[in-house]
């Protein structure tokens, strides 16, 4: 792995890193990946089909159960920037 790989991953993750962070992560991530590479030792069963476990999705009808608009105020109060009841973001196009 090289610095440019870290930069590529950071770009994919939409996160800005300082030069110091890039250097530190390069070293640490390499050590972590060397450790994690152990799973590659598990051979022969790699193409085994994944079994369906005991968990089942809990389904419910997609219906609004609470009174309409009941949470509007608490949710809009958390907007970092707003205009009236609208969430304000920068121009996209």
């Amino acid at each position: 792995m090289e610095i440019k790989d870290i930069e590529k991953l950071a770009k994919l993750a939409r996160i800005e890193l300082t030069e110091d962070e890039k250097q530190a992560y390069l070293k640490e991530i390499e050590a972590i990946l060397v450790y994690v590479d152990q799973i590659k030792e598990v051979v022969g069963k790699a193409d085994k089909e994944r079994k369906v476990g005991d968990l089942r999705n809990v389904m419910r009808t997609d219906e609004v159960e609470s009174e309409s608009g009941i949470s509007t105020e608490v949710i809009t109060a958390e907007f970092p920037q707003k205009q009236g009841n609208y969430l304000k973001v920068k121009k996209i196009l």
Partner: protein
Amino acid sequence: MIDLKNLTIKKAHESLIKGEYSCVELAQAYLENIKEKDGEIHAYLEVFDDVLEQAKEADKKIKDNKDVTLLTGIPIAVKDNILIKGRIASSASKILENYHATYDATVIKKLKEAGVVFLGRTNMDEFAMGGSTENSAFGVTHNPNDLERVSGGTSGGSAAAVAADMTLVALGSDTGGSIRQPSSFCGVIGLKPGYGTVSRSGLMAAASSFDQIGAIGKTLEDVRTVFDCISGTDSLDSTSRENKGVSLNENKKVKVGIPNGFVTSKGVDKDIIRNFTESVEKIKKLGCEVIEIDLEHIKYSLAAYYTLVFAEESSNMARFDGMRYGLRVDGQNGVDDYFKTKAAGFGPEVKRRIILGTYVLSSGYYDAYYNKANIVRDLIREDYSKAFEKVDIIITPTTPGPAFKIGEKINDPLQLYLEDIFTVPANLAGLPAMSIPAGFKEVNGKKLPLGLQLFAAHGGEEKLFNLAKDFENN
């Protein structure tokens, strides 16, 4: 003066009903203790300013004998990643420093109905990533047994608050040991329920297929009381699962399994091995049959665990983009807002895991890491289900060593990851697991608590309580 050291939920409940003291007086006793001790321990990120008002409400319920439960008026501390409507929930992160929860977590709803008094929110590793609370954006929690040492993590604030009598019980969450390891380090009891047993609705997701909320307390009864209150299926958690609630068969000899060769893995403190051997002898004396079991793939637990956890965590962290809530740092354009917000809002461990998760999920490495780790996870699950055909309970130490010194491991993330060796298998396989106090290691005149970990098959929380009770009583 209320004897907080020896107080249990049941004792407090009886005293409250008899009128020996009020909920307000009980809450005050804890608030005073927090004031006296938390300056040096730092278990709390916030002590709520309406504690006494909540206690007054509880007193009224008791006076009117209306909706009184065992938990009415009982003080509880809540980990900072569990939502209580209207209160700040920051996950010990700068990105959510001023975020107010917009709804109650299901566990909080249940506890409110039971009439508890919420004392405050407890410190943790940022977004539950770490194992020492050193990754909190707001400072480390010191271990009440030795202030130079960590309280463990990620629910370190909750465990330390219980250990120092700054609350009667606390809620934590456990992704790879985050309830059990701090409980072990602080000398208290922590239960990670089986996956799906307690609703995750309103718990900020770290790694969604691993996370579970659980209770931390001084006694088994206290932990059980909170567990009984918060467990149960929930339509708001799509992985909620019926828990059959199986106890140990009293008429049959209890079979306890020890994973072959696992306890003596590389890096395990010799005092941990000695203490564990003593626990095994004690369990034999209780009349249990102890047998060695083979868990073929358990040695790959940590590697598989971290691969999957990085992947899930990096996906879960993507929602903190500065758009709808939390911190927003202005950039040159909309996308640049994301880059700048995450850079300013996340601490080093969260960023590290986002990068690692992005790597193991990237198209070129997906099969080699993420898919492979899922296969290993299935194999580990199978190993456990086979083992539970032979034994009722599996035991290991909770941690490979006692609480370590603050700063000792923080600069070497891999070393810190290896601390989780004994706890992650329960989360990989979705099993219930509990840490109970099992003795001490004395270092420089300080008694550092050690924990014994018990696992059962899904639905076996009661079995853990059964054996733990016997262990504690003898």
